[in-house]
């Protein structure tokens, strides 16, 4: 039972990070119908920039407390990623808005390759450890343990997601975003500046990605130029699982995927009599996805698409 709770807690940590990244995918998808394959790389850049800034500040010897270091690093990372997201949309997606559906998918992949290679140029090919300022205090819950840091990750993710939902549901910007996602042309006629809204979506999504990048970096205590790829893929899977384009769906899908993955990794050996080991962890995400989509073709919370587009 202890193991069960432990795996649930691990899953929650992982899942809330997935959810945060999934929101970035799902917002862009909801508005433009585009799989933003470069989003995983934005997460990577977020993690990398934070680590660099924190390391640089420590090397400067200002004697700042760890929390201040991380906050400054995060602010720089968020700003950098917002700029990056804005640029990506302007350069690689906007010119192709009226092109065939797959054209922006290919530029997204191109951008993703470029960002990875730039990251190699700047940060090298090796794993970079997170500076040793992290708190490793452990809290016991029902016999399972979780670090304070992980608690912070979960709470922060939930708070940010709540905030985003409020923005989308209650503000003028959110209303414009929803209108654009329903019908960009008509939204434009109603006085919504569609270009601004799309840019705003990318900027917000990238900011969330930067925060997620920091969380991945602190959770695994290292960063790497390739770290955005798999986690981006999982997060996108989570977004689809929840029903792509649906914000609550992305959150539900992310958390569900995290929990399923860590439960799966913990129990697969027992379930299959040792035949399949925990290195099959990555299969769970995709297997669950396939099963869910067979029964609910538009995801868990996705609206049932009418057969006529």
């Amino acid at each position, binding site marked *: 039972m202890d193991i069960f709770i432990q795996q649930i807690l691990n899953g929650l940590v992982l899942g809330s990070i997935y959810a945060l990244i999934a929101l970035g995918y799902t917002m862009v998808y909801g508005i433009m119908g585009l*799989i933003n394959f470069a989003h995983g790389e934005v997460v990577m850049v977020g993690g990398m920039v934070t680590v660099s800034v924190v390391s640089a500040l420590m090397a400067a010897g200002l004697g700042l407390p760890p929390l201040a270091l991380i906050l400054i690093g995060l602010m720089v990372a968020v700003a950098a990623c917002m700029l990056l997201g804005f640029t990506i949309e302007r350069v690689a997606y906007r010119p192709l808005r*009226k092109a065939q559906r797959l054209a922006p998918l290919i530029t997204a992949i191109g951008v993703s390759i470029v960002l990875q290679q730039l990251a190699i140029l700047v940060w090298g090919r090796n794993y970079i450890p997170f500076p040793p300022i992290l708190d490793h205090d452990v809290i016991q819950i029902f016999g399972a343990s979780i670090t304070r840091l992980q608690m912070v990750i979960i709470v922060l993710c939930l708070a940010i997601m709540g905030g985003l939902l409020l923005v989308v549901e209650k503000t003028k910007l959110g209303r414009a975003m929803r209108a654009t996602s329903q019908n960009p042309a008509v939204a434009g006629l109603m006085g919504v500046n569609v270009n601004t809204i799309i840019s705003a979506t990318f900027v917000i999504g990238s900011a969330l990605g930067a925060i997620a990048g920091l969380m991945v970096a602190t959770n695994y205590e290292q960063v790497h130029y390739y770290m955005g790829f798999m986690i981006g893929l999982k997060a996108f899977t989570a977004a689809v699982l929840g029903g792509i384009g649906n914000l609550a769906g992305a959150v539900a899908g992310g958390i569900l995927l995290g929990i399923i993955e860590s439960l799966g990794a913990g129990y697969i050996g027992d379930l299959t009599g040792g035949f399949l080991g925990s290195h099959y962890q990555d299969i769970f995400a995709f297997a669950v996805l396939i099963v869910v989509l067979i029964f609910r*073709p538009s995801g868990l919370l996705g609206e049932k698409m009418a057969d006529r587009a």
Partner: protein
Amino acid sequence: MNTMTKQPASAKKVATFVASAIVLAVLPFIVGGTFGNSWVRTLDFALLYVMLALGLNIVVGFAGLLDLGFIAFYAVGAYTFGLLASPHFSLDMPFWITLPLGALFAAMFGVMLGTPVLKLKGDYLAIVTLGFGEIIRIFLNNLNAPVNLTNGPQGINLITPIEVAGFSFGKPHEFFGITFNGVYMYYYLFLALTVLVVIMAWRLQHSRIGRAWVAMREDDIAAAAMGINIRNIKLLAFALGALSGGVAGGLFASFQGFISPESFGLLESIMILAMVVLGGMGNIPGVILGAVVLTVVPEVLRDVIGPLQMATFGKMIIDPENARMLLFGLALVVMMLVRPEGMLPSKRRKAEFEDAKEGV
């Protein structure tokens, strides 16, 4: 129904055909003679990728089903060949068993993937195929325990080269006093099979099935109302696409002599998709061009970047591998921005694209 074949071939067409046949026949000698045998190898790979891209084009271009896990079928073909003709299981089956068997298995996997996802549309389908591709790769990577099926990450070594009546494609041979390296032999073998795949794709496109695919791609409900069995033609698209992938996979295994799960990652699937989209989705000459360009360009970059840096700066400023991928990524973006409809779009797509631009 097919009026194309009934018209007498015009003199111009015959001339083009003969000219391209001659060019393709002497190409490896020109390339090999000027740049060395490693470039003939690149040509061989270009042909493999043409087969793969044409296979994917059936699924994505003709039938309009976005498949991000196409490399799985390549893997199935390659592993079928590798396992049946290597010391791993101490088997040495001839290629005329392993190659068709690989293609058959790949087609079966295509149907296996297609059946549960029949109801999925657009990007939901894309992500499921992506997951399917990853699942296959993870299994290949881990099925070395408890029973060693795939030899895990180490992959399978010493795969038998293709051999016809004692004539091995893996060894150098002498004709007319000139020694031909294995890469030349494989070039002609691949060329022959590529031509077969092109003919298959061409005939399919202009057949009843091809028109059914287009109808389904444009509007599946209207197509169903016209009496097209959507389920069957969808599965057929998956199966036939996978078949080409499986053949290419088997050829790859015998050509390379070594396969490991690393060759079958998501990036490979994406590259093949990029070939299809960049070349001109749904248009066979376009897809061929896309595959050749995206195979040759990275190799040219590999050869050019290092010496160029040495010549201009006198030292390596950027790691060549790094610079190569960077330029490749940029090239993908720029090429797509310059020609969003692909290098050689099909007439239908081109028309659609122009309509969209004018906002019709």
